[in-house]
């Protein structure tokens, strides 16, 4: 097993190595993050002042749509799959993923999916402009012709996610080293196992809903066409039946990441390991019975509003368990504040703020006021940016020395953190206020009443965007000229991935690790 990677481009094209594929996922996701971020900056430029100054309204709609699609499907999801590829085999003492060829395939179809999606910018009719939620009939009757490219793009990225998820489930269930029982697995592995099941359950529903759109557009069916006996509201039900579990797909692995990082830098075992596992499973279960809280204003009967309202509020219980466990883990710990820890603490605080605005939105009667305003935008950016993006960033800083064998520059890392932290809050906190004052989502021009909040948001957005360029520089600098990292990397680190040398050899755990190396926090 002494052979290393193949030479040249074929190493990357034909690789079945989980570390190579993990790296490709992460770089792809970062490229998509910059692309989606560019779209966001176009939006913020246009909204810097009231009035139409930079882009046409239709192009503005393309920007909001593509920003959402690229960030959700191109940046956040592949980043988590990349981390899973890198870390899960190393965390459970497996030599590789269970289905390495499928692993290669599930990555390599992704660039094609996004090429299809992004190529629509250069076609007649332009890119999708109906919002990332692509509600029918906006996405069917009134969609640009390029919607078919969007549909096939979604099909391909769905296939990629499903294959990735199947691979992760098979790896975790089948390739754990002897002695690595389920309740000894690191929490990142646990949350990913649950996430993978969510993906397998709902990505086919997404494929189903775009297939129904395809048939409505090209084959004369009327799933969502009222004229033919269909119902546009059905679209919203099917979409959110996928969409709500999807938002937990984007946050559960993040829970796993901070559950690895906080104990390391608090130098204490994770508080309440088993309650963390059960809380994750409860959140996953509840995610299937709350979807209609996205559509309180659609004309549901009172009974429906009540059921979905209470079920939604119930999610605060397992989520609260998690937040309290993280806080209790830090309590009286010997804490140090390296960059991954800073991002993780910011995650706990800011994600909780996002959770609270989520609770506000869960109250059906007040949601009628907040629905489709910037308050909603503020809410989901507070859970996604400090939730998904900060946790991924924390994970990169935390495991980068293990991947590359080199340390990043701590001062630059902390600078990145503070720029991102300030930029994020300056961008998204004012949106709570403009939203409560009534500013609707997805508009290129607005009442001057909201001008100040928008100007502040736009300034913050450019600060946040700039911080990500610094992030890229820090990572490249670490790879090129970072100081050599130790095998253990962090003083308080625990887990199998820290028992292998830094950088991690091309093949790890070709023989299972000894049982005494396995510690469950």
């Amino acid at each position, binding site marked *: 097993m002494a052979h290393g990677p193949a030479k040249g481009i074929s190493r990357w094209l034909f690789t079945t190595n989980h570390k190579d594929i993990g790296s490709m996922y992460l770089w792809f996701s970062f490229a998509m993050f910059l692309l989606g971020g560019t779209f966001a900056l176009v939006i913020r430029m246009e909204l810097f002042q009231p009035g139409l100054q930079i882009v046409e309204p239709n192009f503005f709609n393309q920007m909001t749509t593509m920003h959402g699609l690229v960030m959700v499907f191109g940046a956040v999801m592949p980043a988590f799959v990349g981390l899973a590829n890198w870390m899960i085999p190393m965390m459970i003492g497996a030599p590789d993923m269970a289905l390495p060829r499928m692993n290669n395939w599930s990555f390599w179809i992704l660039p094609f999916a996004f090429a299809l999606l992004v190529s629509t910018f250069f076609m007649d009719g332009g890119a999708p402009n109906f919002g990332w939620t692509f509600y029918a009939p906006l996405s069917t009757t009134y969609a640009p012709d390029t919607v078919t490219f969007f549909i096939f793009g979604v099909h391909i990225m769905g296939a990629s996610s499903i294959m990735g998820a199947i691979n992760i489930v*098979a790896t975790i269930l089948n390739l754990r080293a002897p002695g690595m029982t389920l309740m000894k697995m690191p929490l990142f592995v646990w949350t990913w196992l649950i996430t993978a099941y969510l993906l397998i359950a709902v990505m086919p529903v997404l494929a189903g809903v775009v297939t*129904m759109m395809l048939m409505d557009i090209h084959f004369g069916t009327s799933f969502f066409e009222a*004229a033919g006996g269909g119902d546009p*509201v*059905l679209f919203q039900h099917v979409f959110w039946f996928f969409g709500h579990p999807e938002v937990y797909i984007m946050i559960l692995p993040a829970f796993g990441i901070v559950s690895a990082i906080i104990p390391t830098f608090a130098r204490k075992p994770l508080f309440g390991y088993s309650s963390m596992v059960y809380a994750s499973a409860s959140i996953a279960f509840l995610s299937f019975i709350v979807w209609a809280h996205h559509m309180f204003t659609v004309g*549901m009967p009172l009974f429906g509003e009540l059921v979905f309202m209470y079920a939604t509020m119930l999610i605060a219980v397992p989520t609260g368990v998690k937040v309290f466990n993280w806080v209790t883990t830090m309590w009286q710990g010997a804490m140090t504040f390296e960059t991954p820890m800073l991002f993780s603490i910011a995650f706990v605080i800011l994600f909780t703020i996002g959770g609270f605005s989520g609770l506000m939105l869960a109250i059906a009667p007040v949601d009628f006021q907040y629905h489709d305003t910037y308050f909603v935008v503020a809410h989901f950016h507070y859970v996604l940016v400090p939730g998904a993006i900060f946790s991924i960033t924390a994970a990169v800083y935390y495991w980068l020395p293990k991947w590359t064998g080199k340390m990043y520059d701590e001062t630059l890392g902390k600078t990145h953190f503070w720029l991102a932290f300030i930029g994020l809050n300056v961008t998204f906190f004012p949106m709570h206020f403009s939203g409560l004052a009534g500013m609707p989502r997805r508009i290129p021009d607005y009442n001057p009443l909201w001008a100040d909040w928008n100007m502040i948001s736009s300034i913050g957005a450019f600060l946040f965007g700039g911080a990500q360029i610094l992030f890229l520089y820090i990572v490249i600098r670490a790879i090129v000229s970072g100081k050599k990292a130790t095998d253990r990397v962090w003083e308080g680190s625990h887990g199998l991935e820290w028992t292998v040398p830094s950088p991690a050899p091309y093949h790890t755990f070709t023989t299972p690790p000894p049982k005494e190396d396995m510690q469950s926090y």
Partner: protein
Amino acid sequence: MAAEQKKTKHILIKLLGLVVAMFVFAIWVMPPLYNLICDVAGLNGKTQGQYVSAVAAEVDTSRWVKVQFVAVNNEGMPWEFQPNEFSIKVHPGEATVTHFVAKNPTDSIMVGQAVPSMVPSNATNYFHKTECFCFNKQTLGPGEEAELGLRFIVDQDLPKAVKTITLSYSLFDVTDMSDSDVESKEQELQALHTNELSILTEFVPDKPRNNYIHVANRMQPLI
């Protein structure tokens, strides 16, 4: 290693089965289930299909219910479409007939489909349509006008709080999806045309000239 691979294969097959099952669920289960739930619970303002009752309903003369009619054209539908009576007062249990008028002002054959919606939604299960033009597509030739009939009974069990029911019809242009209806209309018009020509040549004076205005006779039961 072989046992491990067998186990992986086993997991793979199970998970692929789940994928297929969820896809089938999304396309073939969710839409019918949604319609079923809407029908049963009367949600979404969706009125029910044709009502057939074995026993004649008893008329409850102790109260009146106001039934309002709204006719709207969906975007791009050029027909003139409106109710003959905008509002009727009925007793629960009483069968009532009313008409809508539709006219196709264009030069071509068009097919329309009316889609009902009702407010308040808790009245939908108590509003029975024994005959309705909305059960079928309507085909109108160039310039043709038709009276479209609706026969309904408001159930005696209608909640007492409901004093007014509003029934709205949105008229959709479904010409593109109804080639067969357009064809049969074409043949009908052609037949009529040749018929009229022969009538003219035979000098039969008392033949009604306007014989293709049909009045409420298009109400065929759908189910």
